[in-house]
């Protein structure tokens, strides 16, 4: 590589002379890889430390600044056989990691305290029914207080802080009753201990914190895991730009460091890394990802090009106008803003429950105290009973009811090849009744393929091998057909028109009709839906259509979705000639073509105003506002970066089946959440009368609380049973593998009965999600 690669923006320098970089490494799969990578790097001059984090597939390298550089490290890794991508650690990730650790520390403290207080409490319960003296009881109570009070002050912080935030913004969340309950239980117990009473509730308070922290930690850990994975994927596909330096030298820099007014070179076949104006050069631009249009647009000096457009034929010099990866038309930005504002604010199930629950709990406790006072009980007894009501109703089960289900569902979705972007995606996915598809890149694969069915295989092979020498995206589609991947020698590319060379002593040409000298008549006969590439050799002419190919399981998935009584609609930015065959093939009766982003939003909002709950699946930049406007949205991982950021979830791989899985898993998760809330309510209905009657001893409180928590957790774990999603990430998927998957998708359509609890493990189902190759 003659060009200089500049990775300095990724390097961290903590102490003088030392530098560090984090790399996301691709293809790590076993113990041998760890050794190969670490030992291989240690041999390199200047390396101080290299450590591979196998869980995250990330490699941290530290080196002496003057002796080597990141470019050499990446080259060395490539020699060992691994591709490494510089990974920019984001600030959010660091905060995330800190939060997870903090929760784990709180959990450890609460666990320690709960165990020791329980140790004392069990002795107390036993002693109270046998011969314990008052002095020993007091000693045990004071010891419990000594452990529980500092532990609760430390481990309760996540709840206290969140409750305080909620109260300050005049709202109620689940943490408010938790905080009130724990504080009251602790202060009352302290008072009871000081007055030599028989019962104290230190154990209930600290156990409550422990259970709640379990739920909260699990929730946080799952989210961190998906985010880490998404971060790796992002760095695998991070784009590089060729930037001209002040002296005209060309440097390869990450697209994220581009500044306005930088001059960049966009080579044929490359995506435009940032919005800019063409300074020099003439080319065709494939705006597919930007507008959904599959026919290339002309690019000439003065034309504005958008990030994500593919340069088809000739190198362009572009002056950057807006930097950063997520640059786009102002129009789309404005639409996005509007769509986000009008997006109906869905209240999450847990918050809805909390809003109902908190006032009821406090009201019940207050009524209990009043009731007992009116009935002539002493102030002390009335307060003790009220606190017992608070403790027994503390939303232990409710607080675990939803996070545990979410953790289980997120894990299953992850294995099915779906990465969640937003926390409430599961709940929203479960309730949708209409699915809106974009066509290009969503129902069809992002890459076009050559349709060689009507062409002599020998001719096709020659054309494909000739295409290997071209940069044009259409030629690239044809080149994928080549069995022997060796380009012919002496082939010349004429930018914008095609390639020509000599095959077996006769001239061969591949390119546009004009370039190949094909008569107009034949050119007109060519398929009007597909783009056509022409090949002439030894006097014979072949017209090879390059088509958008449907995702292999699109038909099966579409049928399965219709069978689940979901309405399917296609809203595409492409021509109706291109949309109609796709719709007909998939049996989708409602479709509209040639829509611009604003029309897409309007269509979705019209659906929503009719009470529909819309899932939008799209990948183009033109879909981003529509994704934001829909109730919930999914993007393929190949989508434009901005679009991905708008989507509630992303799916991996070349199959559409993850969409089906996402809906099935979410529906199941939602029903489990409702069941769990139901269980928690039943528990309260049974326990509250006992508490109101003033019959709750610490023993009953402890048993009831752990009993209900374990019950909802076990119920949530049922989400792991049932049909396993069978996502296999294709690492050069073989035809048999593909056939198997299509067969499986079809089989799933057949057994489209409600989810059963039988564990069906097919061979493929055992595959775990592999990191993308």
């Amino acid at each position, binding site marked *: 590589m003659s060009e200089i690669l500049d990775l300095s923006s990724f390097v961290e320098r903590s102490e003088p002379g030392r530098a560090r970089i984090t790399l996301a490494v691709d293809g790590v799969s076993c*113990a041998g890889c*760890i*050794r190969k990578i670490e030992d291989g790097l240690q041999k390199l001059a200047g390396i101080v430390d290299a450590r591979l*984090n*196998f869980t995250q597939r990330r490699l941290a390298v530290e080196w002496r600044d003057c002796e080597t550089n990141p470019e050499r490290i990446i080259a060395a890794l490539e020699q060992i056989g691994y591709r490494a991508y510089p990974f920019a650690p984001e600030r959010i990730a660091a905060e995330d990691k800190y939060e997870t650790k903090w929760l784990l520390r709180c959990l450890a403290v609460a666990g320690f305290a709960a*165990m*020791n207080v329980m140790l004392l409490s069990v002795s107390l319960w036993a002693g109270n029914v046998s011969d314990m*003296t008052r002095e020993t009881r007091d*000693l045990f109570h004071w010891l419990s207080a000594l452990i529980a009070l500092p532990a609760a002050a430390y481990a309760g912080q996540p709840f206290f802080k969140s409750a305080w935030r909620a109260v300050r913004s005049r709202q109620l969340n689940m943490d408010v009753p938790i905080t009130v309950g724990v504080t009251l239980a602790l202060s009352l117990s302290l008072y009871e201990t000081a007055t030599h009473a028989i019962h104290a509730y230190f154990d209930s308070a600290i156990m409550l914190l422990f259970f709640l922290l379990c739920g909260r930690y699990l929730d946080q850990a799952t989210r961190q895991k998906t985010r880490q994975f998404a971060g790796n994927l992002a760095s695998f596909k991070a784009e590089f730009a060729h930037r001209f330096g002040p002296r005209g030298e060309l440097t390869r820099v990450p697209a994220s460091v581009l500044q306005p007014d930088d001059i960049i070179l966009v080579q044929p076949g490359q995506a435009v890394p940032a919005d800019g104006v063409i300074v020099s050069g003439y080319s065709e631009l494939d705006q597919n990802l930007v507008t959904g249009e599959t026919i290339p647009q002309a690019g000439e000096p003065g034309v504005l090009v958008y990030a994500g457009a593919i340069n088809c034929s000739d190198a362009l010099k572009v002056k950057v106008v807006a930097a950063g990866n997520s640059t786009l038309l102002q129009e789309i930005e404005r639409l996005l803003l509007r769509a986000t504002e009008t997006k109906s604010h869905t209240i999450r199930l847990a918050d809805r429950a909390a809003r109902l629950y908190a006032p009821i709990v406090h009201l019940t406790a207050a009524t209990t105290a009043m009731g007992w006072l009116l009935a002539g009980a002493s102030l002390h007894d009335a307060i003790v009973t009220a606190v017992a009501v608070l403790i027994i109703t503390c939303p232990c089960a409710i607080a675990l009811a939803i996070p545990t289900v979410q953790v289980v569902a997120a894990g299953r979705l992850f294995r099915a090849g779906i990465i969640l972007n937003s926390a409430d995606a599961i709940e929203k996915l479960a309730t949708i009744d209409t699915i809106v598809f974009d066509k290009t890149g969503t129902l069809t694969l992002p890459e076009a393929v050559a349709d060689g069915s009507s062409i002599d295989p020998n001719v096709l092979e020659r054309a494909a091998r000739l295409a290997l020498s071209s940069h044009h995206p259409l030629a690239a589609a044809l080149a994928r057909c080549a069995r022997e991947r060796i380009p012919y020698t002496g082939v010349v590319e004429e930018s914008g028109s095609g390639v020509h060379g000599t095959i077996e002593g006769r001239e061969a040409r591949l390119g546009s009709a004009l370039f190949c000298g094909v008569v107009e008549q034949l050119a007109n006969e060519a398929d009007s839906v597909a783009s056509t590439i022409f090949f002439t050799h030894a006097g014979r002419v072949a017209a090879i259509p390059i088509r958008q190919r449907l995702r292999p399981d699109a038909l099966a998935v579409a049928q399965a979705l219709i069978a689940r009584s979901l309405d399917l609609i296609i809203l595409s930015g492409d021509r109706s000639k291109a949309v109609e065959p796709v719709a007909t093939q998939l049996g989708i009766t409602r479709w509209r073509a040639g829509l611009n982003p604003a029309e897409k939003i309007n269509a979705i909002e019209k659906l929503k105003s009719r009470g529909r709950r819309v899932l939008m699946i799209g990948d183009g930049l033109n879909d981003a506002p529509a994704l934001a406007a829909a109730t919930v949205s999914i993007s393929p991982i190949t989508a434009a970066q901005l679009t991905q950021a708008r989507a509630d979830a992303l799916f991996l791989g070349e199959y559409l089946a993850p969409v089906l899985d996402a809906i099935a898993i979410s529906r199941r998760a939602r029903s489990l959440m409702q069941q769990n809330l139901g269980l928690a309510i039943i528990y309260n209905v049974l326990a509250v009368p006992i508490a109101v009657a003033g019959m709750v001893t610490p023993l009953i409180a402890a048993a009831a609380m752990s009993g209900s928590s374990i019950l909802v957790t076990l119920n949530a774990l049922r989400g792991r049973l049932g049909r396993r999603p069978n996502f296999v990430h294709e690492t050069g998927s073989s035809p048999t593998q593909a056939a198997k998957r299509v067969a499986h998708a079809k089989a799933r359509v057949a057994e489209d009965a409600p989810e059963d609890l039988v564990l069906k493990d097919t061979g493929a189902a055992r595959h775990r999600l592999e990191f993308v190759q």
Partner: protein
Amino acid sequence: MNVLIYLVPMALLLGLTGLLGFMWTLRTNQYDDLDGAALRILPDDDINGD
């Protein structure tokens, strides 16, 4: 019951040692790469000689 005077503090001390141990493992990032730790014990190249 006098035995409690030293048994209870001992029990608490043991528990506290465990807690501090856990905090130390957390501070030294020992949970960052659980899958890697499981694999790193497999190679035998750290055994010299035979």
